[in-house]
Each structure stands twice: as C-alpha cells, then as structure tokens.
C-alpha cells in the first residue's frame, strides 16, 4: 500500500481507479483493459509533471516520506557481513544512529547512519532518527576503530536533527556533536557521506564533514527545518513553504553552492517508488568516490578535508 503525500492526491486518485478497474478486468473485458492502459499513461504523465517541478517544500515532504528507503534498507542491499556495533562505552546505546563493520562491494568498511525506523515501533526504538549524545559518541568510537584498522568510513545521513531533551543536554549534546564533527574532519581514512533523506542541521553535519558528499535528488539538507525557520523568522510555522524556498535546501541548490559534490538521481515519483534501483545508484556513487580516494595518504585526506571546509564562506563564494 502506497502512502501518498498531499500534493500527490490527483495521482493517488488515478492509481486508485486503475486498481479498481484491474479488479474488474479479471473478467477479461477488452474495453476495460484499454481504459486501464489509458489511465496508466495519464498517471505517469501526471507523476512526471508533478515531480519535474517539485517545490523545495514538496521535496522536504518527499525526503521525509515514510516509505523512503532508510539506513537499514541500504545495509541489507549493499553490505555483506554487516556487524552492528553498539554503545558509546560511557553511558548507553542510541539506536537513532546505527553503525558497524561490513563489507561494501568487497571493501571492509565502517558504515554509520541515522535510522528513522520503518513502522511505529521502529520509529520509537530509533527515536525518529534524532540522536542523543550517545549516538554521536558511538559514531566517534566507530570512526576511531576505522582509523585503527585503516578502513574507509561511509555515512548515510537521514535525520530531522539532534534530539532536544533534558538528558541530552545534561550529557553534553553540544559537546558530542562538536566531537563528531571534529572526528570527521580529523580522520586519516576516506570519509564518504550521502544525504539519503533529511539532512537536519547539527545532527546531520556531525556525520557529514566528509571528503565526498552526495545527495539523493529529492533529499534536503539544511541548517534548520523549514518549520523551525518559519516560526523564528516569520513568527508563524505556517510559512514553512516560504522558509523552504529561502533556505535553499534542495540537492540542486546545494550543488550550485558547491556544498555537495554530486546528486544521485531518483526514479520518477521519488525513491520510495523503486527503492532497489535507488539503493544501487547510491552504492555506485559511494564506490566511485571510494575508488578515487584509495591510495591517498591519510595525512592528505585530513588536510584536504580541513581545507575544503575552512574555505566555505570565504570571499569569492556565491
């Protein structure tokens, strides 16, 4: 069963009609088969029309789509021998960030990412992908492990942001995020990041200060959610659409701003309509980026990464 977004309503209606007719056409009536074909091409046209001109706000909704492939789907399809590793060795385990060792297309690697959860129970278990300090500290620990064994690090970003709570603040949410960013820029092994859904603020950059950063076509990456931005700057959360426009949070805008290195295309109608293909494309892009970094000395990987981020916002940009 597909979950449709508000702006997909006309498509949903057509697809519903097609389904009904198909049910009828079991009787083998020819004109129904014709009608189905006609409606199908109409639905596809509509889908193409809608998705070729998605607004930044609509892209935000697609990026948050509940059926969009999540970290665990990528692991299942792309990584062999995945061995999840838990805990920050100080306080606890935070499943908003999942990480471990695994073999990606032959390469042993440390793979870390936000997981939002696929159903209600999963979403609660993974805290909707909103990590607490333990999640970031676990990520740092796994990056240390990668460095010790000279393994590349792959991160998949998909988070509304870091979790705002009393315990998180008490245990140093800021410090944990700062250390994770520091570890990312400091690593002496390749670090490759893909924003696969929502790149929410500090919680996202904590895993994404990478040598190579890609975004899926309909993913978003931003300093604050459009809703949060609207309620602060417009004093009204209803202005989220305006905020989404102003923030320039789409993959296309961020590529123009040279913040992301590449955009990975999604199938018509978004990643959730054909997850297998998207997951493979993400795998291909990671492999390409990884091959380009193999053989580069660790010190240089670190220097390049630092220089790249230290140059962002200097005179001349934009």
């Amino acid at each position, binding site marked *: 069963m597909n979950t449709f977004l508000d702006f997909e309503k006309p498509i949903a209606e057509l697809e519903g009609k097609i389904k009904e007719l198909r049910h009828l056409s079991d009787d083998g009536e020819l004109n129904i088969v014709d009608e189905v074909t006609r409606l199908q091409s109409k639905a596809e046209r509509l889908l193409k029309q809608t998705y070729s001109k998605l607004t930044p706000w609509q892209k935000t909704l697609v990026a948050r789509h509940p059926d969009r492939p999540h970290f665990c789907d990528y692991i299942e399809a792309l990584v062999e021998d995945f061995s999840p590793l838990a805990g920050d060795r100080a306080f606890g385990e935070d499943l908003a960030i999942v990480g471990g060792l695994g073999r990606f297309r032959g390469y042993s690697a440390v793979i870390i990412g936000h997981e939002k959860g696929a159903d209600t129970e999963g979403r609660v278990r993974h805290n909707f992908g909103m990590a607490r300090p333990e999640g970031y500290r676990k990520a740092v620990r796994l990056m240390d492990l990668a460095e010790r064994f*000279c393994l590349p690090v792959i991160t998949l970003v998909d988070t509304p942001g870091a979790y705002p709570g009393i315990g998180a603040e008490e245990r140093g949410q800021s410090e944990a995020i*700062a250390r994770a960013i520091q570890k990312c820029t400091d690593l002496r092994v390749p670090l490759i990041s893909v924003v696969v859904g929502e790149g929410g603020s500090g919680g996202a950059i904590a895993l994404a200060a990478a040598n190579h950063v890609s975004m899926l076509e309909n993913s978003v990456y931003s300093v604050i959610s459009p809703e949060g931005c609207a309620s602060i700057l417009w004093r009204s959360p209803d202005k989220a659409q305006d905020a989404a426009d102003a923030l*320039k949070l789409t993959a296309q805008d961020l590529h123009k701003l040279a913040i992301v290195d590449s955009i990975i295309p999604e199938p018509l109608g978004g990643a959730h309509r054909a997850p297998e293909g998207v997951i493979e494309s993400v795998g291909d892009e990671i492999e390409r980026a990884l091959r380009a970094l193999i053989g580069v000395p*660790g010190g240089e990987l670190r220097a390049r990464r630092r220089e790249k981020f*230290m140059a962002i*916002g200097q*005179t001349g940009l*934009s």
Partner: protein
Amino acid sequence: MNWITNSVLPKIQALVGREMPDNLWHKCPACGQMIFHRDLEQNLKVCPECDHHMRMGPIERLAILFDDGQYQTIEIAKTALDPLKFRDRKRYTDRLREAQAKTGRQDAIVVAHGTIGGSPAVVAVFDFAFMGGSMGSAVGEGLVRAAKLAETQNAALIAFPSSGGARMQEGILSLMQMPRSVAAVDKVKDKGLPYIVVLTDPTTGGVTASFAMLGDIHLAEPGAIIGFAGQRVIQETIREQLPDGFQKAEYLREHGMVDAVVPRRDLKQTLGRILGLLMAPGPIAKIVALPQPELVIAPRNDPGTTPADVTETDGASPSG
C-alpha cells in the same frame, strides 16, 4: 581594582563616551536593584547587589582582558554578502545594514591580539548585539583568521562565544561554519598551542555544537546560558518542567562540560595563570611526541578477494 580604574575605564569611556551620561541608572534584570551607571561600569557590568553578570560588548571585554589594556584588532576580510539572497519578513541585507548601523561593526565578531599575564594571546569575541551573535560566513572567517594569527604568532587562541547559534539567513553556509571553525581551532591545537573557550551568556545551538565545546579548557561566566537546544524547543518536545538552573554555567560544570565558572573580576587573572602554566612550563625539557604513522589504504595489483591492502608507513618517510 586599581588597574581597571586607571587604565581601562578611561578607555571604555573614550569609546562609549558622550552618549553615556554618568547620571544614568540601570535596573538589574535579576534582582531589580537600580544601579548607577558609573558604578555598574566600574564593576564590569556585574550587579553589585546580586552578582548577576550582564552581557558585555566586545570592546569593553577586550579592554579588561589584555595586559595594560593594550591590544590590536585585526581586519577581517569581507565575505560574500547575502549569498542566498535570503528574505523573510525582511531582506537579510537590510537586517545586516541595521545591525551594522547599531553596532558600528561589520559582523558579529571582533579579533584582537596582545598579551595576557605576559603570554601572547589572540582573542575572538562575539558581539551578541549583532543579530544575536549568530554565526555566518563572516563570523567563520573571523575564527579562521584568529586561528591563523595564533599559529603565526605562536600565541594562545581564546574564544568568547556569545551567540544564539547559526545564522539562518545564510542557510547551509552557516551550518558549514561548524566544521569550518572546528578545523580552524584544530590546527591551532595541532601546533601545541592552547585553545581556551570562555563561555559567556548565551552560547547555544551550532556555536556550542562546534568550536565552543572543543577547548583544551572551558571557562564560563556565572549564570551564562549554555546549551544546544533552546529551552522552548525542549519544553515543546518533552512537555515537562525544566530543572532549576537548567543550561546555566554552574549546571554545566556539575555535568562535566565546563572546567570552572569564573567571575568576571577574576577572569583576566585566571586566564593569565593558565596560559603561563601551559606556555611557560619552566625548567623542564620539552617532551616531544612521536610522529603519527602515516595511514594509506593502497589499491592492490590483483583486485582479488581483498581489494584493499592496509599499510602503515613511518611518518618520517611517507610513501604510497
């Protein structure tokens, strides 16, 4: 407090000068006490009644920090203005112009250098009055410049954040100032120079979650609000009462995030002492750390079962 009265006060008065009549009264926001303007300035903007530390502008701060009140500020290169052409209810360029007119500053950071307790120091101070001290490209540039200056002068780097966080109007570019500032201070630390953060009211959001939490030493001013998420956001999320003193400097010290809460009148002395201990170690030989071995993930000639070969070479003779 002689040095303050003799050398600093005239300086402050010269700076704020005519516009501040001495007969002005201030109301302490904490205890409500009416304080004579001159008394408040003399007491470093700390309420004489309840010890509440009020916010302080960057120039006032610099004046009471360096030896003999002597320091030089540096130019910060102009960065791209309004790279996103951002407009909410107002244009970002208009907001910038207003803030510049109000503060007389290009952006929310001032970088200065001099000596503190005899040790060379580069100081980066935020101006909360400039768009809430928010961190955009210009503030990031200030931090990068400050870090580079510390490296070239073999000086300590001291940051005084006071910021609501990232500057939303610069979108992703403001988020990118987080890794940018982190990489900048890391280079100072790599050179063996001290990096000290003095957390002042308020330090929140993307600023706390980047360079401000990575100091060798974290000092904080009494009562300063320091945290990641805003209190309203937390309350809306958890729908619980926040504990007493939540996100205050003392609370952070209790939770292990801050080394010491230092009253403003002791700050200069404390910084001078710490810098002396770190930078002038006395009659002991410098302990030389071993160079880190170079890591290389090298491709294999035969792309067989194991595609990557792990080699560790000596840092002194890099290869591969």
